[in-house]
């Protein structure tokens, strides 16, 4: 993302606040349980994708295993609720902290790996995590754990989770946005563009990456905790399904890597499209469509939906539209 003077800032804030007010009022008008459920899922994914985007989109460290932090959050809340009977909302904070701690340890070890090697390490970590939770009795094995039943009456039971998820997603977006405006943020972008040069200009790259990774694990942990208490159960499949990681990637790329609004757009579009496509062409065929979308995007819109205005130029560059190709200046 490019910073082009601060005069653009004010209308941007307004643009952020208006939808937020609309979302706050939304449950007053829409009581449909299904719609509220879809909204909660969107908020969950916004949190996940926005968090993933900090190391992934800004620093270029693509994680294939981000579901791990979501899962750790879910199990943390489950364990705390079942065994220690701590107030639910407090368990979310612990869930975030546990995820962040795992990210600290794993990040410190693995962030020296670059490109595909880092991606594979994250995939391995998520798989290991899943098997740990699958095979230890204290975590309930394959059946998982049942959480205490929600105290809310059925007609209102989605409302607190709706506001909880909205709150966490909003906080995530604003904090990540804030981070991208700091030295840490510009340092992360420098790392993405050229890590060796960044280090040569005084950037402590390891520290930058580990901090980014900790933040990117904290929020998924918190929202994982909330989602577990919302579903009222956790099991290795609900918490560690690789589909989450795949969806995060799809949404991030669809929305636009390394932008703050991209994940919001990507998460919303994919969740809604998933639901619509499940009704129309079926649950499984939908994945084929997503695969097709991803490949098409990679070719025509590498900047994601946010860069849709540039599609004409990209089509030309790729030779799909006849016309003068832009000359690439020789060094």
């Amino acid at each position, binding site marked *: 993302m*490019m*910073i*082009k*003077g601060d005069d653009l800032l004010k209308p941007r804030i307004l643009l952020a606040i208006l939808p937020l007010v609309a979302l706050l009022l939304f449950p007053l008008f829409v009581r449909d349980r299904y719609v509220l459920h879809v909204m909660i899922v969107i908020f969950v994914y916004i949190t996940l994708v926005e968090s993933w985007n900090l190391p992934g989109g800004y620093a270029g460290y693509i994680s294939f295993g981000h579901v791990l932090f979501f899962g750790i959050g879910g199990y943390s809340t489950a364990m705390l609720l079942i065994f220690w009977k701590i107030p639910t909302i407090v368990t979310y904070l612990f869930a975030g902290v546990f995820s962040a701690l795992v990210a600290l340890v794993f990040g410190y070890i693995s962030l020296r790996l670059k490109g595909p090697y880092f991606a594979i390490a994250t995939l391995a970590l998520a798989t290991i995590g899943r098997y740990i939770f699958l095979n230890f009795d204290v975590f309930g094995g394959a059946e998982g754990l049942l959480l205490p039943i929600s105290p809310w009456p059925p007609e209102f039971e989605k409302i607190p989770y709706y506001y909880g998820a909205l709150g966490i997603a909003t906080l995530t977006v604003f904090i990540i946005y804030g981070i991208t*405006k*700091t*030295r*840490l943020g*510009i*340092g992360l*972008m*420098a790392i993405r*563009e*050229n890590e*060796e*040069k*960044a*280090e*040569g*200009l*005084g*950037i*402590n*790259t390891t*520290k*930058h990456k580990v*901090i980014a990774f900790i933040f990117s694990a904290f929020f998924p942990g918190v929202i994982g905790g909330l989602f577990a208490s919302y579903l009222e159960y956790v099991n290795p499949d609900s918490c560690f399904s690789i589909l989450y990681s795949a969806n995060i990637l799809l949404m991030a790329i669809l929305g636009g890597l390394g932008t703050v609004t991209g994940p919001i757009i990507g998460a919303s579009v994919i969740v809604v499209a998933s639901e619509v496509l499940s009704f129309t062409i079926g649950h499984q065929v939908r994945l084929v469509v997503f695969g097709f979308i991803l490949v098409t995007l990679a070719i025509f819109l590498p900047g994601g939906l946010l860069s849709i205005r540039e599609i004409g130029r990209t089509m030309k560059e790729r030779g799909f539209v006849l016309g003068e190709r832009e000359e690439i*200046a020789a*060094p």
Partner: protein
Amino acid sequence: MTLEARKVVKDFGGIRAVDSVSLQIPAGSITGLIGPNGSGKTTLFNLLTGFLPIDEGEIWYKGRRIDGLKPYQVVELGIIRTFQITRIFPKLTVLENMLIPTRENGLSHLVSSPRKDGRPKKAIQLLESIGLAAYRDEPAASLSYGQSKLLELALSFMVEAEIVLLDEPSSGINPSLQARINQWITEENRQGKEFFIIEHNMDVIMGLCHHIVVLHHGQKLAEGEPSVIQQNDQVLEAYLGE
């Protein structure tokens, strides 16, 4: 005491790229590093700035041993370098590029804005003096090769460095701009910055430097004032052949 190498050795497989080189940058000087291609100049830069580990010897700066430090730690001490092949950050704007260099990595520093302490103002002044101010909001990828070289040089001026190591700053730059860069280096030097410059252009080296070190096959061949180096038979032989 300024930057000093003591019997530094670097091997690449069976090749000794830097062979027991000892040198000291005279305080307050502009020092040149010359030598034929493959004589180990850039490798020596990489060793001095922590980009490569040394095999033997020591590197000292201000009474402190600095070999083994990471590149960013070397920058924190006040030693910054440029690269022979420019490595700017292509997708960031020219101004954003300028805001990246830093000598601090503390937590409170990381959460602060890169735009505080008048840094954008300083950046724009620097960009104006090299004629890139008009491109400040353009992605750095849109710059030409020569302009990228200039940006690379300007980046090294964004931190309050004490020593600047420049790796062939004049290659690919037109003569009038070259004169401006030389002027720039001289001015910064008068204000207390030391320079260590790799250069093939002898006019630049002889006109700019107070002190010259010659490398050949990884060894220090000669060292001294420009006029002395110009008369040195060994140096002429290394450059021109027998």
